[in-house]
């Protein structure tokens, strides 16, 4: 792409650019804080995940109370979700919201203080789990009971500024991503408060406990990660392809159907368990209906990218976002299918549920966040990513590892679950059935660790202002002359 005459894209005035630059500058510190501390937690989480998968096979390894498998596994999941996913999400939410509202961020310090409290909460929580203080029977609520008010307060302190920004937005700057970000601002505190008040304060939940816990865990995926991930996709795709989102009506339909349906889902994983039958039945029905917003979003994004698919090869942001979209489809389909009575008999209490969790958290959300980070960081650091080939390596290692991990966990889950279902065989035999898959899982985790080392190294270089000092974007690979011609025609120089 020629830079000889850096002409402005159509519809963009020099004032727009100055305004963007001012917004980017105002968001620089909090966004980089959340990205870097999130990335550090990502590394911790992947290492814990590697350790957990290792301990599943080499049962005698690291025989310390602290590194007990029953503690390492939830510590890994919580570090991944609250340490990495939420913080990456905060950074993306802040930046996209500021840009779309066309307002500068006036209180970066408050956000950073809240961010420190969030990190303190996650640290106490993960340490508490490893130290044996966690509530190990509630998925994603394993942190010791003292942590939740801290996390909730930190979250509210962060999102209140997003709401303030939205209410102070420039006229005429309403956009789909803002709806999703606003939704995420409100859904999580609601779910987290309800779940913790019932389970940690009143402590009277009894059998309703697992229902609330499964509702919350599903809500983290479908009412928080999906809105934030889609907000990022709705922002990144048109920015890079230079095309307007296909249909406003479809976007609005997808948004409202998600918000109406998702709060009903979750408890289908208790099917056949000691809860009233209608609870899993309603939840499973809602989970199937959640395919509708997914189809609408996919159609919308597909129609938007159509004609510019070559850009997926070239632009790091678009490639990660595209992969995340595939992850979103897989997550919705797998969640819907695993809720079915006939199949859940084989997947209940098995690795398949871990597989779906990894799909939502990593294959969809984490990859979407990588896409957004590759887009945002050059803008707030004023330098470019060091190397396209390293981004490519990061992508392929992550993609290969996460596709492998999710399919292994699903297949191992079904074989493990059907072995559990054999009345006469012991649990040990059932685990033996999936041993081959579990050995494969260790290697895939090693790939994931390598991928994240590459990512974090790149990010640190950017933060230290050691990126490339050039006005040209870092692309995954240089487009061929033919592709360049095509791309210039279709997108007029849009980039990563």
């Amino acid at each position: 792409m020629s830079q000889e005459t850096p002409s402005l894209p159509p519809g963009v005035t020099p004032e727009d650019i100055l305004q963007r630059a001012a917004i980017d500058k105002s968001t620089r510190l909090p966004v980089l804080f959340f990205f870097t501390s999130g990335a550090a937690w990502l590394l911790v989480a992947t290492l814990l995940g590697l350790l957990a998968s290792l301990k599943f096979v080499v049962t005698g390894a690291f025989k310390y109370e602290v590194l007990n498998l029953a503690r390492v596994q939830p510590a890994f999941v919580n570090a991944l979700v609250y340490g990495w996913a939420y913080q990456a999400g905060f950074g993306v939410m802040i930046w996209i919201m500021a840009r779309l509202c066309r307002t500068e961020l006036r209180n970066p310090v408050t956000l950073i203080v809240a961010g420190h409290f969030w990190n303190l909460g996650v640290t106490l929580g993960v340490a508490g789990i490893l130290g044996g203080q966690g509530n190990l029977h509630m998925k994603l609520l394993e942190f010791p009971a003292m942590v939740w008010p801290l996390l909730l307060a930190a979250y509210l302190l962060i999102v209140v500024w997003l709401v303030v920004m939205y209410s102070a937005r420039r006229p005429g700057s309403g956009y789909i991503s803002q709806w999703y970000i606003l939704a995420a601002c409100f859904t999580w505190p609601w779910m987290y408060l309800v779940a913790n008040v019932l389970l940690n304060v009143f402590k009277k939940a009894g059998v309703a406990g697992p229902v609330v816990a499964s509702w919350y865990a599903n809500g983290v995926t479908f009412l928080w990660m999906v809105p934030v991930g889609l907000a990022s996709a709705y922002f990144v795709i048109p920015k890079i392809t230079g095309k307007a989102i296909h249909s406003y009506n479809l976007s609005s339909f997808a948004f409202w159907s998600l918000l109406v349906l998702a709060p009903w889902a979750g408890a289908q994983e208790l099917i056949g368990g000691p809860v009233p039958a209608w609870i899993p039945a309603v939840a499973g029905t809602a989970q199937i209906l959640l395919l509708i917003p997914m189809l609408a979003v996919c159609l919308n994004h597909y129609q938007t990218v159509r004609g510019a698919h070559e850009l997926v090869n070239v632009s790091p942001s678009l490639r990660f976002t595209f992969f995340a979209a595939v992850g979103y489809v897989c997550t919705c389909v797998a969640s819907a299918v695993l809720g079915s009575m006939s199949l859940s008999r084989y997947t209940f209490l098995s690795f398949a549920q871990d597989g779906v969790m990894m799909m939502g958290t990593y294959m969809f959300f984490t990859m979407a966040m990588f896409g957004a980070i590759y887009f945002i960081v050059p803008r707030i650091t004023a330098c470019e990513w060091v190397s396209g080939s390293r981004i490519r390596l990061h992508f392929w290692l992550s993609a290969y590892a996460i596709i492998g991990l999710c399919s292994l966990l699903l297949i191992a889950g079904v074989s493990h679950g059907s072995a559990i279902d054999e009345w006469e065989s012991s649990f040990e035999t059932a685990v033996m059935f999936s041993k081959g898959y579990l050995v494969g899982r260790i290697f895939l985790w090693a790939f994931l660790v390598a991928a994240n080392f590459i990512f974090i190294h790149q990010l640190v270089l950017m933060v230290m202002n050691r990126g490339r000092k050039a006005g040209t974007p870092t692309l995954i690979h240089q487009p061929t002359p033919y592709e360049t011609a095509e791309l210039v025609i279709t997108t007029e120089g849009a980039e990563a």
Partner: protein
Amino acid sequence: MASSPENIDYARTANVATMHAAAAREREATAVGGTPVSLWVVVATGIVTIIAGAYFGQNTGTDSSIANIRGYQYALQYPEGSSGGGAAMSDEELRQDANWLAAGKAVYTGAGNCVGCHQASGEGVAGQFPPLKGSDWVTASDKRLIAILLYGIGGQFSVLGKTYNGQMPAQGTALNNKQIAQVASYIRNEWGNKAPLIYDDQVASVKVEIVRQASWTEGELEAAIAADAACVPSEWPAKIAKAAGGAAEAAPAAKK
């Protein structure tokens, strides 16, 4: 590419137009197309809705009456003594063996309680939920049994030579001391099990002695409470005997 501005340090240049190259090459993105929702979306929505409806029907059975959703009838909080056989009974009467065990059975079979997993036969579900019938965990140490009921147990543990892996939720928050004592007594004396009854003051003493957040693992439980550990003796047998003695004395007196 010869004239492309490579190797310019953007952090040091004063030229705003080049400093914000990343911001400058970006497109406007706030415009959204107005394409109406196509017929195919409506059709696909209909198909998914039909599948979801079939799923709902399959999982709630053909009985569409309100009775089918009456599973919700169990209360989240058990009123004090609700399973105790009526308010007319005195404390001592309630704790007589037959009444105490009957109350325990009511707790055991209460909706959402033990029976869902451990079954009415006390044999559990092979490979998934361990049996109570003939299990040492139930009949050996009263203290250990109370501790399991109060805080739940998770992970791998072996019962009657078979390994189970699951999670028994803590009951200490859902059931009161009386109910825990009743149900513990019941499972110790049903299906051929034979062991002394447990009373609520014993549950209270374990609650004071052992305070936990997390549920037990087999290793932790074995380390904390020996297989033959016994609770402090209950005051109730003496009180019951005294009350019974008093009644026996009173009876001849009434005859006079």
